[in-house]
């Protein structure tokens, strides 16, 4: 019998890079177009730089204030890393507890959902009050914002194992613990990774909100401070740095995903092959 396995010929490094570069072209083109139009509009209509700075002014601010921006980025990045790691641990642990201890799960899950309806921005001043102006309140704020997608996706992964596979395991005497450790947890890893990708973007937002509420350093603090000084170009420059930090973290998670769950089907909205 000749059954050839479907081999993926596209999966060579060079070909993948070329596809990636090609798929980035439309986005880059659109970005350049928007920047050009923006610059032209500012010059044409003589918009005040206090209201909307031109892209060129933002670029100048980026270069002039580069050391300051980098120092602020380091502070924010540190908050994001600590907050994100803790969110991942708390989120995954909650999902495991809910699945492993059913009664506890039934008690806890509705409360977690209820807690999600509380606007976290409103909690920021309270955390400042409780934990001071330093790292701690930002980390707590990030965790309460970012643990939820982790818990939700991990739960979905743990619960979506094919029932007949579990029946098969039970039929040879596997315990609930065996099923959890040998099948449910590895099965949940790709789901966990998508939860983590959402959590990392939430973590950046959480850090900025935390710094708005009360801080003496960081990109959020810088945005707040620059806007009170009417240094609008610096506000935008800081926003650019925030985005770069966020995107950097996001792709770091995606790279980790390929290492941890190489078997998972790739989700690539830019190169859909359907």
């Amino acid at each position, binding site marked *: *019998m000749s059954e050839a396995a479907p081999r993926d010929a596209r999966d060579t490094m060079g070909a993948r890079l070329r596809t990636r570069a090609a798929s980035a072209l439309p986005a880059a083109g659109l970005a350049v177009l928007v920047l050009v139009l923006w610059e032209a509009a500012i010059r044409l209509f003589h918009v005040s730089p206090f209201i909307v700075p031109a892209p060129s002014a933002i670029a100048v601010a980026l270069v002039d204030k580069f050391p300051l921006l980098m120092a602020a980025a380091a502070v924010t990045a540190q908050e994001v890393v600590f907050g994100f790691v803790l969110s991942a641990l708390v989120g995954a642990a909650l999902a495991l507890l809910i699945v492993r201890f059913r009664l506890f799960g039934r008690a806890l899950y509705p409360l977690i959902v209820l807690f999600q309806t509380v606007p976290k921005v409103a909690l920021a001043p309270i955390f400042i009050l409780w934990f001071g102006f330093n790292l701690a309140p930002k980390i707590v704020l990030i965790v309460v914002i970012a643990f939820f997608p982790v818990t939700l996706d991990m739960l979905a992964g743990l619960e979506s194992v094919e029932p007949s596979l579990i029946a098969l395991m039970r039929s*040879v005497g596997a315990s609930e613990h065996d099923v959890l450790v*040998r099948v449910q947890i590895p099965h949940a890893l790709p789901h966990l990774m998508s939860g983590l990708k959402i959590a990392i973007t939430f973590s950046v937002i959480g850090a900025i909100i935390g710094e708005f509420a009360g801080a003496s350093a960081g990109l959020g603090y810088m945005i707040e401070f620059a806007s009170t000084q009417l240094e609008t170009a610096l506000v935008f420059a800081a926003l650019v740095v925030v985005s770069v930090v966020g995107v950097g973290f996001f792709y770091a998670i995606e790279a980790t995903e390929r290492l941890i769950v190489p078997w*998972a089907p790739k989700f690539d909205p830019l190169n859909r092959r359907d």
Partner: protein
Amino acid sequence: MAVSDGRTQSAATAETLIALRDVAVEYGVGAGRHRVLSGIELEVARGSFVSIIGPSGCGKSTLLRVLAGLVAPSAGTVAIAGLSPADAVKRRLIGLVFQDANLLPWKSALDNAAFLLEVSDRRLKRAETRARALEILKLVGLERAAGRRPSQLSGGMRQRVSIARALALDPEILLMDEPFGALDAITREEMSYFLLDLWQRTRKTVVFVTHSIDEAVFLSSRVHVMGVGPARILDTIDVPLAYPRTEACFEDPAFARTEARLRALLLEGHGKGSEP
């Protein structure tokens, strides 16, 4: 009916491995309680290949689950080599294969084949389970694909790994629930030859659930036809074709006759079931 084949005759006199007496299964409680199976009488001889055929919803999968000890009957007795299904499962008499191969995508074909054995017996060393799994992969003709992940295997190969996983436990009985149902027609036919060959080499007892009439006739020595409303066994038909079976079987008038008979039975049973 006339039984011309020597094997079928010997099967009739061979030792009974599986025996069901007046088995019923009910689901639900109170007013919502309903029968999914009733009055099931079934005997399967050791080493035979039998099919259970019927329309969707006739309870054939439930019947297989009763044999596997996954569903407890609400009435009647089930004996597998004189044991209850639960004890038979404990003694690893039963291997299960489902329509979906259900392989673990993060494990290689070899580790998937070794998986159930590993879970069933903690005392076994990893090297032992892997050696056994490799042996079985050779048996199903997949030793060269041992290192591949399920995503790198074709549908037929995946189903063979899932059969290997069941065989690694060295069960007496293979219970198969529409194992080729998700495969394309050509692969399906290839898998039929493969399964017959495997059966003749391993001498397992096979209980094969399907809704395909020609699959049932081609593979088995005996076909149990199930009908709905209430779900029960309508009739049992012996297939008058000798093993080993080849493509020539499809040309045999006996094949067409048996197929026609099964079709008539199924249609009749279906018509009765759809009455209000």
